[in-house]
């Protein structure tokens, strides 16, 4: 999105929730729901259970047993709390402070709570002016804020362990009560956001970030007065603000040092010779040609082994892989080097840019979806043929018949696909 587009947009819409806030909101929502739904299934004892027995059974078998479920619940919980705490600490734009300030109750809020039920019966009842969040939203926000802190702290303490005394016993109870309270408020929050059409703009603002000024004027008059549509936009939509800032500062520095224009692309034939030499050096120095997919399959094996070591060890394909090590695997370092080398090369060619490469015919999400699907297909195929394109390139250098057939098929398939999908890339 270019700067001018941003300006245009901010004339028609106010930005209520910058992208950072939206990401944190939806991460929080997704994590909380997952932890709630898995937590209910952990309490399997009939004397304590808060969920139906069939549900507990289904979830337990879905996660491959109560042990896995408990571990996943703990790991996701730790990730959740870490991200939430970090999002408050690493906050270059002061958004979390603004959020906290917006939650402070005011005199108007008390009046609002009195007038709001009357307005339900008689819509003409005047409601006191509200800030960025109305009194009901504030109440929910405060409950969530305190609830998340209590749930996170009690959960972490349970994980660390407090010796099994009265405090330990109380922790389980505190954990449960806090979840119960947040869930109760969550039901109302969900109903307001998803089911009541009059509140639709609020939901949209949490998805797209923008909010209709007319709606704001009516529902958040106090906030609207502070952020009139005319004049400066409240906050430009900062998509990928943090990575952009990092990339931007680096690239700007390089661009200042050099000319603004990116360098011309290199000669493909020279590049081909360079690649051939790399393969040759690989054989001489390592005894291998280059590869890539082996790293990803090993990464998969080791990641899975963190969660389900027995399952991976008993698998005929994964099991032997586990014995070979991850950090002392040459491809782990080669793939890291490829990323680093690519970065440096792009830096010096002044081609460093954050973006999603795609044709103009398709949307970003379509592009990403197709890439994901293609990636899964390629990943699946590499395990069947014991290597990806780069592996077969190295093998072809050894005059392997299979690899020559493979490369031939890549060219034929590539030409056919290019013919069929050329419109996508226009």
């Amino acid at each position, binding site marked *: 999105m270019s700067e001018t587009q941003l300006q245009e947009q901010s004339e028609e819409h106010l930005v209520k929730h910058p992208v950072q806030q939206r990401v944190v909101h939806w991460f929080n929502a997704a994590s909380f729901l997952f932890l709630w739904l898995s937590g209910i299934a952990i309490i399997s004892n009939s004397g304590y259970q808060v969920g139906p027995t069939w549900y507990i059974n289904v979830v337990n078998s879905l996660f491959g047993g109560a042990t896995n479920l408990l571990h996943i619940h703990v790991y996701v919980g730790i990730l959740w709390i870490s991200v939430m705490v970090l999002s408050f600490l690493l906050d270059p734009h002061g958004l979390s402070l603004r959020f906290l300030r917006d939650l402070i109750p005011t005199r108007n809020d008390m009046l609002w709570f009195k007038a709001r039920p009357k307005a339900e019966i008689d819509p003409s009842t005047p409601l006191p002016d509200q800030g960025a969040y109305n009194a009901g939203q504030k109440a929910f926000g405060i409950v969530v804020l305190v609830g998340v802190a209590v749930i996170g702290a009690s959960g972490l303490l349970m994980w660390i362990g407090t010796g099994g005394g009265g405090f330990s*016993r109380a922790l389980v109870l505190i954990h449960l009560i806090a979840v119960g309270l947040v869930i109760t408020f969550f039901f109302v929050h969900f109903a307001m956001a998803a089911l009541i059409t009059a509140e639709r703009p609020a939901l949209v603002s949490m998805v797209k970030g923008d909010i209709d000024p007319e709606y704001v004027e009516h529902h958040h008059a106090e906030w609207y007065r502070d952020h009139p549509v005319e004049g400066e936009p409240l906050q430009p939509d900062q998509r990928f603000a943090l990575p952009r800032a990092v990339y931007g500062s680096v690239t700007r520095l390089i661009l200042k040092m050099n000319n603004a224009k990116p360098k011309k692309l290199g000669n493909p034939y020279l590049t081909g010779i360079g690649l051939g030499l790399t393969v040759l050096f690989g054989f001489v120095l390592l005894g291998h040609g280059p590869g890539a997919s082996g790293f990803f399959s090993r990464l998969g094996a080791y990641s899975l082994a963190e969660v389900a070591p027995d399952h991976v060890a008993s698998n005929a394909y994964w099991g032997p892989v586990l014995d070979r090590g991850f950090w002392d695997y040459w491809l782990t370092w080669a793939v890291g080097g490829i990323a680093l080398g690519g970065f440096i090369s792009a830096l010096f060619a002044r081609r460093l840019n954050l973006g999603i490469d795609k044709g103009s015919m398709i949307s970003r999400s379509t592009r990403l979806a197709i890439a994901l699907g293609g990636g899964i297909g390629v990943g699946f195929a590499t395990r069947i043929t014991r290597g990806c394109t780069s592996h077969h390139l190295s093998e072809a250098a050894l005059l392997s018949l299979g690899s020559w057939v493979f490369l031939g098929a890549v060219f034929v398939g590539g030409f056919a696909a290019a013919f069929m999908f050329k419109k996508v890339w226009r």
Partner: protein
Amino acid sequence: MSFEFRIDISRCIGCRACEVACVTANDLDPTASRNWVKFLEQEDDVVRGNTTFAPYLCQHCEDPPCVDACPTGASFKAEDGRVLVDEDLCIGCGLCVPACPYDARYVAPDTNILQKCTLCEGRVSNGLAPACFEVCPAGARTFYEVVEIDGEERVISVGDVNAIDEGHEVMSWTSPTVNPGPTMRFSGLPEDLALLNEKMPPQGGGSETAMFWRNGIGKGVGALGVASAFAMAGMIGLGKLRERKEKVALAALAEQEEQETQAEIDSPTEDSPTEEGDADV
């Protein structure tokens, strides 16, 4: 039930070899055994040098209250009758500790995992008797279990569980109010057994936390959920009702306007803008 075990408290000499054996066999912290010997003394016993020693351990109950108190299902009654703990499932909450009538459980501070007697499951399945039974020099502890090892039935025993000394009686460690069905039996002189019951009665009731959870929280959280669901339904209903009302009113207004414009085409009427009356939450 595939095992039987009995302790004769009148035979016990209070040497505490059983505690040491337990620590060694299970590789435990030296201060934390899984079975214990309590010294029971009546007031004049000190003068007479007459102390009753009460060795005790998990009773591996038929209906174990500790299993009932475990929220995650980590404590369980195994098929062979043992009461065991799945260490992977234990969250160290300690709800089972006060639930045990015999005070036979504790949470290890270093691992945060519940510790309790397993009747040396690992030793027995390898053909050895439980360590504390095997080591007793006074013959106070007797044990009998039939296990299958490599497809063969093997009898593992220490002493004779059914050979009761003359004048000794046999009892289960229960009280009129607390009877979780202990599978261990105590034997000994009637006065020693009476002393055991007097000084170390089985404790019922469990923890307040568990009771609070079971009686209060489940219902409280449930009631809150139902209440908020009702509130939600009410709000949605009212909202829909109001939307319909507005629609009807608007339709009526439009109809009226149409009639008016038809009636007086020459003089245009002033429109009164309708305020949208949606309240925000």
